[in-house]
């Protein structure tokens, strides 16, 4: 292993350009070192150049990318390597763990095939049998249950967390000295994230490997990084030990980035909503999918939720908890097997299609992905005007005035004539909010509206959301996996797990003094942007596991 004085990876003045005539520089000369046994986090928002920088270490950038500067990995100049040398370096000296664990596995080959392939890529002398044994060893190492069964399965038969373990097992196949982990837990639930981070931290610190962790999540950084480099618009803004970056950030950008991260308990007390009316009343809701030839899956299993007028109700849970399905059932996009859904006191489950359509006009919806939920051929104004002209039958100047008013409310006046692709993710989501509230709904359903956005953008969108809600006073079902976001925005919380309600109540009570074991686990697993707290939690978790 390399000792700290001669780092495993040394990057000097790395510059990456795309295209030609004129080449567009996206990384403007960064320096970076990673030593063995050290976890270095490269943080930044999307477009900051962090992934591009990391991929240039493996020379895995798309065709047409130009890389200059110097990258020395284990004493060798990566930029001078031939195709052959690159092949023997990849996976062997430095290995990659990708962001999307399912997409990064080939869907038509078994897990065993792919892990064995990784094993044999660098030790072709192994017999098929030995390679297989080694593959099972690797899967055991990353704590996959029943590794021999997994060998025969296909990626789609495994959960996201298990796929990510397979990805890590493949990365470890040739025992590389450097692991490059590109947002390794972004696609995973918090409890799974905690487990994967445990594995990564063990592989790094305890086994002497260098880990370069690319992430936008300050909680993850606080959890496992020793040192942090902050990137912004292709340049290195600040670097230091994790403790110093979190305790005394020097640059405004770093400070803003840290401030934008939502945290539980930052908001202080808030009054509990009291009205006896109900904007939404769900009781005994059961949603089942499948049937006939397929196995029936009960996505929602007897759920009661209500939202008062003006109340922000957070619906929190991990993937598969049924939280999105509940939202879909309310707007009639999921089959209701049993139970009742009433909007403004009017039952929608037993109503005629016409009545249901009418009831839905009182509901606004904001979806997770603003890029796909806006029609790319509509301008901002057309998008917002559509419900006004189609449902309310407004025409001419009346539409224009309302659109202007709505765009001002979401702070987008001046963008009326822009198309979706001309807007940033946060702006698009604000357009979606304006459209959702155009008909002055009494109930708004927001399904993970900020989870596709960067933290600083998320903060802005949540701000807009809060203002619009205060002004219009609709009740809101806010679906999210992020407890901190819910704490900053909502009045009340319902915690879901496997289609059932685990706990329900005022947000302060549920999120700071949870009574259910599951809520406590969820809270403990969500990393907070504070290295000392995370260190304490990790010690507790490992002590508990031992």
């Amino acid at each position, binding site marked *: 292993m390399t000792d700290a004085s001669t780092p495993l990876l040394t990057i000097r003045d790395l510059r990456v350009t795309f295209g030609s005539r004129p080449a567009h520089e996206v990384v403007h000369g960064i320096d970076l070192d990673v030593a063995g046994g050290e976890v270095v986090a490269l943080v930044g928002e999307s477009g900051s150049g962090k992934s591009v920088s990391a991929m240039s270490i*493996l020379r*895995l950038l*798309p065709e047409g990318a130009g890389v200059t500067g110097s990258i020395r990995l284990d004493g060798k100049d990566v930029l001078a390597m031939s*195709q052959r040398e690159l*092949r*023997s*370096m*990849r*996976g*062997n000296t430095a*290995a*990659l763990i*990708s962001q*999307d664990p399912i*997409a*990064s*596995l*080939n*869907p*038509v*080959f*078994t897990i065993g095939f792919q892990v064995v*392939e*990784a094993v044999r*890529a*660098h030790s072709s002398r192994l017999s098929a049998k030995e390679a297989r044994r080694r593959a099972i060893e690797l899967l055991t190492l990353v704590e996959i249950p029943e590794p021999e069964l997994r060998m025969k399965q*296909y990626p*789609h*038969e495994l959960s996201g967390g298990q796929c990510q373990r397979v*990805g890590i097992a*493949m*990365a470890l*196949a*040739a025992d590389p000295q450097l692991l490059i982990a590109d947002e390794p837990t972004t696609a995973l639930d918090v409890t799974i994230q905690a487990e994967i981070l445990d594995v990564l931290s063990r592989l790094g610190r305890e086994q002497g490997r260098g880990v370069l962790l690319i992430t936008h999540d300050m909680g993850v950084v606080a959890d496992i990084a020793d040192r942090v480099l902050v990137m912004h618009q292709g340049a290195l803004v600040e670097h230091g030990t994790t403790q110093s970056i979190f305790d005394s950030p020097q640059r405004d950008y770093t400070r803003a980035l840290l401030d934008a991260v939502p945290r539980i308990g930052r908001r202080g007390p808030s009054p509990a909503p009291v009205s006896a009316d109900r904007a939404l009343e769900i009781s005994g809701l059961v949603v089942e999918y499948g049937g006939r*030839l397929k196995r029936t899956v009960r996505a929602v299993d007897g759920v009661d939720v209500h939202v008062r007028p003006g109340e922000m109700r957070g619906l929190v849970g991990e993937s598969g908890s049924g939280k999105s399905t509940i939202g879909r059932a309310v707007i009639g996009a999921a089959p209701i097997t049993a139970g009742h859904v009433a909007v403004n006191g009017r039952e929608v489950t037993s109503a005629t299609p016409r009545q249901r359509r009418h009831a839905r006009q009182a509901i606004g919806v904001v979806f997770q992905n603003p890029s796909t939920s806006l029609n790319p051929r509509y301008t901002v104004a057309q998008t917002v005007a559509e419900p006004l002209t189609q449902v309310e039958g407004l025409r001419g100047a009346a539409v224009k005035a309302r659109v202007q008013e709505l765009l001002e409310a979401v702070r987008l006046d001046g963008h009326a004539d822009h198309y979706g692709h001309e807007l940033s993710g946060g702006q698009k989501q604000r357009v979606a909010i304006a459209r959702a509230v155009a008909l002055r709904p009494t109930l708004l359903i927001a399904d993970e509206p900020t989870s596709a956005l960067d933290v600083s953008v998320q903060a802005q969108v949540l701000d807009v959301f809060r203002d619009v809600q205060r002004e219009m006073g609709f009740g809101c079902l806010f679906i999210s996996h992020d407890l901190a976001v819910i704490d900053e925005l909502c009045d009340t919380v319902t915690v879901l797990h496997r289609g059932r309600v685990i706990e329900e109540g005022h947000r302060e009570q549920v999120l700071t003094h949870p009574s259910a074991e599951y809520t406590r686990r969820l809270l403990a697993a969500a990393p907070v942007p504070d290295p000392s707290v995370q260190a304490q939690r990790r010690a507790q978790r490992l002590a508990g596991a031992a």
Partner: protein
Amino acid sequence: MKIALAVAQRLAGFALVFLGVTFVIYWSVFSLPGDPIQALAGDRQLPDSVVAALTEAYMLDEPVGVQYLHFLSGLVHGDLGVDLSGRAIAPQLASRWPVTITLALTAWTIQVVLGLSIGIVSALRHGKTIDRVLLVTTIGASCIPVFVLAIMGQLLFGVRLGWFPVAGTSAGWPLSYILPSLVIAVFGLASVSRLVRSSIIENLGAEYVRTARAKGVGERRVIGLHVMRNSLIPTATYLATDLGFLLGGTVVIEGIFNLPGVGNLLFQAIRTHEAAMVAAISTALIVIFLVTTLLVDVLHTLLDPRIRRG
């Protein structure tokens, strides 16, 4: 159990489609204007007794439903009926199939080999000159109406160069079949190669390809195995459907090259109002179509574990 049920459901669907489509064809052939008996006689005036006898023999005065049921019961007994000249239909069909099948398989093979090669080359060199040249050529070729292409081929390779016979099957396989097969293949080439190209390009950008490279897997294996195996799924579906289509006989090509195939027979039968013949051929085509669809599903299941073990 689950599979048995799925197969049963599938077969029930087949039976419905089969009955529906054969009836529509039967009915539409009988609704065509014109008198089959008069068409048989040409310009001569037939004695009333002959007309009556023929009408009786072919049940021409029965309602179409009764005739259809009669046809179905014949099918069940393996009897396709007789044409208006009194010859049994089954042996006539049997003598035509080999020509159509040979033509279809030859054309299909040429299409597979050329289409895959062109698709792979243009995908791996996408955006480069060779890709653009192949794009313009294949699309240009498939823009030419097929009869123009056929006649140009006959003129150049048949008459001028004398490499292949201009028409007929007397020279046997492969000589008689190469020219018509090439015309068919060239016509369908653009679709196959474009599909292969776009599917490979899509898979080249997939994340698992980056994973494979990051593992240190060689480029030849990355493309030959990881990319190709995934690109094969949509390509195989298209090619299987295409084969089914070609097996149905190509009326125009068989006509121009005077190949005594099923397409040719169908064309004649429609012209002479040979209702029984049209129905028999159409029935065969429907069976081919249904079998092809089934084959495509089986192929899908074999190639894609997400469907096999979804």
